[in-house]
């Protein structure tokens, strides 16, 4: 709709893909993101409207996939909701309409850079980056953690698959950290 051309967090016009040994790092540009927080004392109402709108509200430290909305827990009575960017660029407006005044909704799409990690086994690289026992936590585990001084969200999608949300302004530093750790690990 806009005449402006988007630039990625890495300063490019297309998604970055990097391969180091068995590891594949794919930047994701097609994710719309918004925070949803229950208004004080309105959790029950929010649960109801969210259910009706097909927005999962998973338990703490969990990610739950859905269509079109997937969600992960970020704080007490607060979640980050993902949806396809192409169809949900206005995700905040859509969620506000769906959830009404039971929730506070804030657009988060461009606050983050998103990297998907894929390798037969991600533990050797992740154990060099963050204090998460990746081998042991269950699929769907979602947590905030720290990688090379950067606060990120890490979501385990499978033994060899993870998604990282990192601060957008530090996208280049985060990618560099992932690359060097991978080179040392594999």
């Amino acid at each position, binding site marked *: 709709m806009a005449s402006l051309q988007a630039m990625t967090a890495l300063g490019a016009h297309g998604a970055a893909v990097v391969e180091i040994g068995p590891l594949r790092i794919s930047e994701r540009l097609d994710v719309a993101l918004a925070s949803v927080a229950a208004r004080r004392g309105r959790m029950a109402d929010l649960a109801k409207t969210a259910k009706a709108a097909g927005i999962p509200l998973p338990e*703490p*430290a969990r990610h739950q996939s859905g269509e079109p909305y997937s969600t992960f*827990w*970020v*704080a*007490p009575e607060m979640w980050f909701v993902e949806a396809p960017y192409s169809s949900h660029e206005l995700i905040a407006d859509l969620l506000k309409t769906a959830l009404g005044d039971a929730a506070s909704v804030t657009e988060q799409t461009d606050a983050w850079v998103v990297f998907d990690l894929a390798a037969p086994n991600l533990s050797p690289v992740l154990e060099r980056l963050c*204090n998460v026992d990746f081998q042991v936590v269950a699929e769907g585990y979602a*947590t*905030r*953690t*720290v990688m090379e001084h950067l*606060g990120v969200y890490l979501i385990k999608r499978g033994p060899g698959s993870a998604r990282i949300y990192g601060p957008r302004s530090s996208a280049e530093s985060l990618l560099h950290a992932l690359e060097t750790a991978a080179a040392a690990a594999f």
Partner: protein
Amino acid sequence: MIIHHPILGPRDAQEFVYLGDATLIDRPDGMTAGVEAFHDYLYNRDNPAGEHRELWYHEQGDRSWLVVTRNTVTHEITKVELARDVARARGRTK
């Protein structure tokens, strides 16, 4: 150190930011209390050698403020609560 977060379980203390004695929850009411009350609230501490209730903020986590009961001599942690619950229990309202 490891802090057993009431919601998230064991987390490295590195993820947290330390503030100080949990009595910082008991802020006087500025419309009724005067300088003396605020002075004692803000500046004076028991600073015990032993059990200490203190405020930690899970900045690299879920942003919860916690009240951690920790022994300042051994560093043993015996209790961790959500500060919000503690504050409510102490009758803090609007």
